Each structure stands twice: as C-alpha cells, then as structure tokens.
C-alpha cells in the first residue's frame, strides 16, 4: 500500500507553492511565482495571481508526486506571517480542499517551516538557526518544556537583510531578487568603509542601507555592492556566532530566501567550523518560499495527532515565530 501523503500550501508573499510530503520525504514542490516588476509587490494583484494559479499548481504537484487527491490525508497551509491578501488565498484553497475531501486542516507558521524543512531533511536534533529572508532576519533555537517553540535570540531591529539588499538594488537601478543582483554586482569589488552595527545578538540594517545608497555617488556600483554585502553578512555571522556560544548548540542551520547567497553560506560555514559545529543549508528550492516546507511541518503535526479547531484555522499577518508551538 502506498503511504498516505500530506499537502502544504504556501502563499505568504509572491510565491505560490504547493508541496507534498510522504513520511518526511518530499514528493513534490511545485511553484508559481508572481513576477516582481520595479513596482514591487502589489498585494491585491499577487492575491489574484495566486487565485488564478492555485488549481494548476495543485495538479502539477499531484502529478509530480504521482498520486491522486485520494492519497492525501491532511492539508497544511501558511497561517502567517505574510501579506494578508496572499495568505487568505492560500488559506481559502486549503479550506476548500479540506472540506471537499474531508481532510484535517493544519495552520503552519511560515518561519517555523523554513527551519523545520532543513531540520527534517538532515535529521538534525536541536539546531541554532539563522533565518534570513526579505522581511525576517532572526537567530533562533527551540526551547521550552512542555510548550516548545522557537525562541528568538537575536534579530534585526528594523528591516530584514533581504529587503535591505533589494532596496539597495532598486536605488542602483538593479533588479531586486533576494540580493542576487547585488551579489553579481559585487564580484571583484574593493572594500569601502561602511557602518557596522551589531548590538549583542541583534543588528540593524537601515543605517547601512542609507550609507550604501549615498556612497553610490562617490564609488563604483561594484565597490559599494561588495562592501554592502560583506558588511551585512559579517554582521549576521557575528551575531550568530555569539548566539552559538550562548546556547551551546552543536548544529547550525541557514535558511530563508537569502540563504541562497553563496557568500553568506561560505562565511557561516567558517563560523561553524571554528566551533566544530555541524552546518546545513538546504538546496535552493527549499530556501526560497515553497510549499514542501509547509507540508513537512503539517505532517509532523498530523503524525503527533494534533488537530486544530476550524475557528483557529485563520490567517495572521503578524504571526510571530515564537507564538507557534512546535512538535
């Protein structure tokens, strides 16, 4: 008999992702991505895009996993944090699916899913995580008993590192995409001095962003991009190293959209090596927003026998990661 599968629907921002997981194995990870123009994300348009594509993406995922809807035994969706209108489309799709086929519905925290997908993929126990994306930059680890959740040891005091890199890219007339255009522009650059702000395990990025934008008038794009990237990533690494020593964890995870950056991976791997710590990053398709990570967490919850009341299957734009219980 084919083992039953769990489906996950992610729609917190411009990516609509549907993933299927069977016993922790990722069978499908289908995505439709709203194309970001220079205007950024327009919430209502993205929501329309998701609504138009959810059916095809779902069918694509089922086809890829070579199963039918009858093999699904639970549905997970992103409860938050994210853009309200986008979250609602995912939640509605999940609700529709669940009620049509009488399946349990499981709300998942987006940030938890980002970490858990790596943890499950590499069978890690209790890693320290650096979660870096557009809106979030946090250093986390699981604590608490019996109520277990991800505690935030350090985080950005203002904007996420991804948004910082993208804002800079926009002001330099580059295409914003989790800092990849900044990374490209940075190749072969030379260092110009920039403000470096770490407060214990927390950090701020707006001052750095303003400074970098100003320096564009005096220095080449190459040098400024290089310095911006080196400074921002060094700040993240320093804060993470401090958290690593404080928590004494032996495993470390890098996740979220900005985890796609080769340079950040390289730097954090060195931090881990210096402290003889296991270091894991997932393949890129699981760092960007995706449905598989939602399915992974939903399956964990389902196997633990957690059932969520229909009245609690809502969306929450500001669903903080430490408000979500983890199994």
């Amino acid at each position: 008999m084919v083992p039953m599968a769990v489906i996950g629907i992610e729609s917190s921002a411009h990516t609509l992702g549907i993933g299927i997981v069977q016993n922790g194995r990722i069978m499908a990870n289908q995505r439709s991505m709203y194309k970001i123009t220079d205007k950024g994300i327009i919430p209502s348009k993205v929501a329309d895009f998701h609504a138009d594509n959810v059916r095809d993406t779902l069918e694509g995922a089922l086809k890829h996993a070579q199963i039918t809807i009858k093999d699904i035994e639970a549905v997970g969706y992103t409860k938050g944090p994210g853009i309200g209108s986008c979250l609602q489309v995912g939640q509605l799709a999940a609700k529709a699916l669940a009620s049509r086929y009488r399946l349990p519905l499981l709300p998942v925290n987006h940030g938890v899913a980002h970490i858990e997908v790596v943890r499950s993929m590499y069978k890690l126990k209790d890693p320290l995580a650096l979660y870096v994306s557009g809106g979030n930059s946090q250093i986390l680890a699981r604590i608490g008993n019996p109520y277990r959740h991800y505690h935030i040891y350090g985080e950005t005091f203002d904007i996420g590192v991804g948004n910082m890199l993208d804002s800079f890219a926009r002001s330099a007339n580059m295409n914003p995409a989790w800092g990849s255009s900044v990374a490209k522009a940075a190749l072969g650059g030379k260092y110009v001095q920039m403000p470096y702000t770490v407060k214990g395990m927390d950090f701020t990025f707006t001052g750095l962003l303003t400074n970098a934008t100003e320096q564009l008038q005096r220095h080449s794009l190459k040098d400024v991009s290089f310095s911006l990237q080196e400074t921002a990533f060094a700040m993240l690494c320093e804060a993470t190293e401090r958290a690593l020593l404080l928590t004494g964890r032996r495993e470390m995870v890098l996740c979220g959209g900005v985890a796609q950056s080769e340079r950040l991976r390289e730097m954090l791997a060195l931090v881990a090596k210096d402290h003889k710590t296991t270091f894991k990053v997932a393949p890129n398709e699981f760092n960007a927003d995706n449905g598989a990570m939602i399915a992974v967490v939903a399956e964990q919850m389902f196997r633990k026998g957690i059932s969520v009341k229909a009245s609690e299957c809502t969306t929450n734009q500001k669903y903080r990661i430490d408000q979500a219980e983890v199994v």
Partner: protein
Amino acid sequence: MKIKRISEGAEARIYSCNFLGFDSVIKRRIKKRYRLATIDEDIRVHRTKNEARILALVSSLGISSPGLLMVGKYDIYMHMINGTRLSEMLGSKTNLNRVFAQLGRYAAMLHNNNIVHGDYTPANVMVGKNGDVCLIDFGLSEMTNSMEERALDLLLMKRSVAGELFEGFLQGYRKECRDGGRVIERLGGIEKRGRYNTRSLITR
C-alpha cells in the same frame, strides 16, 4: 609573564595572568576568518580602543567596573573581578532586588554621561559575595546621546529577566536618569514596532 586561557567568547579570548603582582585578566580580540580582513582589522582595533577609553571613563564616574591596566592593539589588560555572573544567579533563590535597583542606577549614570553599554544583560554583570555589582564587557559600548540606543540598553535587560526584577531596575533608573522618562517612552515606542512583544527568555 604566564597567561592562562579562562574563557572564550564570540569575539575575544579571556586570559588570566599576574600583571606586576596583580591578579589580572587580558581580553584579546581574535581574528575572525569569516569576514573580510579589512573589516576584521577595523573592528578589532576600533573596539579595543573604544572599550579601553570607555572603561577608563566609566571607572572615573564611580561605576564599579574592571580597572584598566594597559592597552595593546587588540588586547586590554585589566584587574580581575571576583564574583558570580548575574546570569547564573537568575534561577537561584537569592534576592536580587537590590542588585537590579543598582543596575538601574548604573544604567542611568552611563546614560547621563552619554555612554550606552550596548550589551546590557545579566551575562555582563558580576555580583560579589557581599552583593556589590560590577559591570563588565564594554565591548559594544558607545559614546552617544541617542535616545534609541539608550532605550535599547533597557530593552536588552527587559528581555532577559523576569518582570518584577525589571520593575525594580526601572525604578532605580528613573530616579537617577535625567532623561529617564523620555528613554522609557522610547522603549515603549520600540516595542510597539511590533517585533518584540513576545520576546522574553521566560518560557510559557
């Protein structure tokens, strides 16, 4: 001179030694290979110089802190402080109200003199046998009159201790600090930005 490593932090190694007959510690900032050599050098030199300068200033204000002995390019020699880290006493039954009131007053004295600590947490406070409080690790301190930075000092402390202890801390702070009201107002403002409401080391 014989030196012995006693602990390793994220950015520095701490050694103990006997400096001209005094029990002393050396804080040596170590090279970090993950960051660009230029950034690394800048940070280590700047932070060492900055820390030494502030350490000297803090002692002169009458705030109990490790006395400065000598400064190198990457290392600071200072008097050894005997006692227990406050972070290690948080779970115990010791009454810490007096300690936190004193910490509040110390924070106010720093802020009155345009110094922010930058990492004002119980891990950076030593408590002696008779309950006297000593601030250590001015590695992230700065000279600034920024309200935001001051409020962040309070926020770091708030996040790492139980509510009633922080109340005592705030009382001590309010009494001593010239701009106390405005700083506390700013603290509320930072928390309202939405990210920090649930952040506390106290677990449910």
